[in-house]
């Protein structure tokens, strides 16, 4: 599903997005000049560790960054609109209808005092002008589609009657209710058990494919990325540092951070007992970012110019971009290693 060579207009096109938050210690920039796109029917994974800006990027799309958050610059182009410029009522029309969101903790996203049926029916009643009874009946069908056993009878139950996995299925049913063009899932399975995690992600992937919708998965789990994503954007310190198709990224990671991240994950087919490769140092503090490349303080290849300016994004192969000034140096070292071998 490589989309690189197909010149279609992307469904979502984010250009040079910067977002900051007001804190006690002044404004902190959480997202710094992020550009990315999602094509129709594509699954994009945004990968990063805590504080990388991956969730803020996703939340900004729907204007869900709260009162302290502000989009400083940039455009979020979706179906002819710049979402960054839309008023809250206009955004509200899009949320749940054209773009739906699934959060990490389903219990805090569901209303505890409303029945499941009412909550699943609401978006269709609201956005699609469906009669309440029709919407309610359709809610039963949707719960059935996300494989909730005995769905029709469970419409009258409340969220606390459902297990974590079942609640996340309800969230998926709600997200799919209006057949949105884009679904954003922010760490959708982090709170769930391994076997349930696999069920939920497969369900989400299959249903979005049936609707030919696009999916953005925000995650820190490189295994989830490998199993479900077509394309990957890697974030670090508020910036995208590398983008490629999933296969290309794992085969030819071209940013020292991506390379280090992939190497540091123990795998089910690696050599157990040997020391894992590590990335030295600590994740960046957004309030105290270094002036140049945000990864430079932890980067073994960093040189002086890395610490001075923000590295520009360059295309290294079709569909494969990265932001790193030390790249030539890496190539040289690889050549060196090959010569020695």
């Amino acid at each position, binding site marked *: 599903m490589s989309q690189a060579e197909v010149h279609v207009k992307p469904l979502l096109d984010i250009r040079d997005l910067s977002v900051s938050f007001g804190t006690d210690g002044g404004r902190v920039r959480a997202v710094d000049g992020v550009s990315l796109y999602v094509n129709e029917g594509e699954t994009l994974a945004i990968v990063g560790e805590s504080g990388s800006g991956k969730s803020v990027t996703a939340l900004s799309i729907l204007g869900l960054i709260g009162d302290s958050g502000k989009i400083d610059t940039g455009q979020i182009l979706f179906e002819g609109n710049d979402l960054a410029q839309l008023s809250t009522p206009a955004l509200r029309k899009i949320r749940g209808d054209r773009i739906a969101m699934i959060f990490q903790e389903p219990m805090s996203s569901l209303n505890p005092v409303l029945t499941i049926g009412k909550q699943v029916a609401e978006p269709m009643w609201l956005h699609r002008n469906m009669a309440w009874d029709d919407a309610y009946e359709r809610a039963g069908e949707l719960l059935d589609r996300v494989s909730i056993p005995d769905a029709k009878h469970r419409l009258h139950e409340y969220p606390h009657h459902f297990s974590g996995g079942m609640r996340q299925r309800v969230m998926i049913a709600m997200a799919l209710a209006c057949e949105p063009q884009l679904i954003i899932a922010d760490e959708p399975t982090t709170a769930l058990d391994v*076997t349930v995690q696999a069920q939920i992600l497969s369900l989400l992937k299959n249903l979005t494919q049936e609707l030919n919708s696009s999916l953005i998965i925000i995650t820190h789990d490189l295994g989830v990325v490998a199993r479900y994503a077509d394309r990957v954007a890697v974030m670090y310190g508020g910036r995208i540092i590398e983008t490629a198709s999933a296969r290309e990224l794992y085969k030819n990671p071209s940013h020292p951070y991506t390379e280090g991240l992939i190497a540091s994950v123990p795998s089910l087919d690696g050599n157990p007992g040997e020391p894992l490769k590590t990335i030295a140092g600590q994740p960046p503090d957004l309030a105290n970012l270094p002036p140049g490349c945000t990864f430079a303080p932890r980067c073994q290849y960093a040189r002086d110019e890395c610490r001075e300016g923000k590295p520009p994004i360059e295309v290294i192969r079709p569909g494969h971009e990265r932001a790193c000034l030390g790249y030539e140096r890496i190539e040289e070292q690889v050549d060196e290693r090959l010569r020695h071998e």
Partner: protein
Amino acid sequence: MSDCAMSEAAIKPVEENIASVRDLKVHFPITGGWLKKTVGWVPAVDGVSFDLKRGETFSLVGESGCGKSTTALAVLRMQPVTAGQIIFEGKDVTHYTPNEMRPIRRGMQMVYQDPFGSLNPRMKVGDIIGEPLVVHRLARDKGKYRERIRELMDLVGLLPDMADRYPHEFSGGQRQRIGIARALALDPSLIICDEPVSALDVSIQAQVVNLLMDLQRRLGLTYLFIAHDLSVVRHISHRVGVMYLGQLVETGTRDELFSHPKHPYTQALLDAVPVANPEIEAQRPHKLIVGEVPSVRNPPSGCPFHPRCPKAMPECKVTKPELLMQGASASVACHLYEPI
């Protein structure tokens, strides 16, 4: 089953076991009515037996509610034991009083999951690390006390000059190092690690896993490792036990269990874990099991896994399979297997 497991252990050649758990049961009371009378019991751990050999890492894996953490707390005697035996360094400590446990605890320490919740925010890091020494009255000589703290910080890769700082000044990975240094303060032989890396960022997890393996080599530590992340477990363990609804369903050496998983639940668990490689992922079958872990309050009859098991037979609904040996170093509780 307890008698059988005990006699088996007695016959086996004496491998040096640092600790043994025999038919451990931990049942929690369910209270009801306005008198809060006990109306039932939740069998959180229901007949678990295993040995910990000196210098090895034995991991307990399983999904939430399988009883792995409760088992770990019971080994430390931080959880009342309903039935069974806990043997540590040759002594049956199951019924020791808190006073009798005090000297025993020096030998067994714990590293917790959440490095943010487990450190007192008002204490200096040096005092957090040294607190066990104070509690066990080993800190009378201030000079030696401070020297020991410096030594411990150095051991876990923290700068000893940081001893006067507070926990909030440290990142997640460094806080976990503080937790490990504190656990090492009393020179224990057994460390129980309850999900020690799952709250950490990916790039930091590897640092802590390496530290734990390095400390094991240098200090000859034994680890009881509780985790749900199978790739970390495979990396760090010598032997692994898989738990489901309060019971061990399979045990084996790392290579055996990961290369030839026997129990259908172990197989499902391994299938569910995505591998961080798209090319391998594209070729994997992704056989997903249906359903979720049932409530421990109402465990299914027979084999606890039978409602979700793709290979369930009529027998599985009725009879609970016992954990039986499969060769010298593995065991499985499943009607599909005859004891070998």
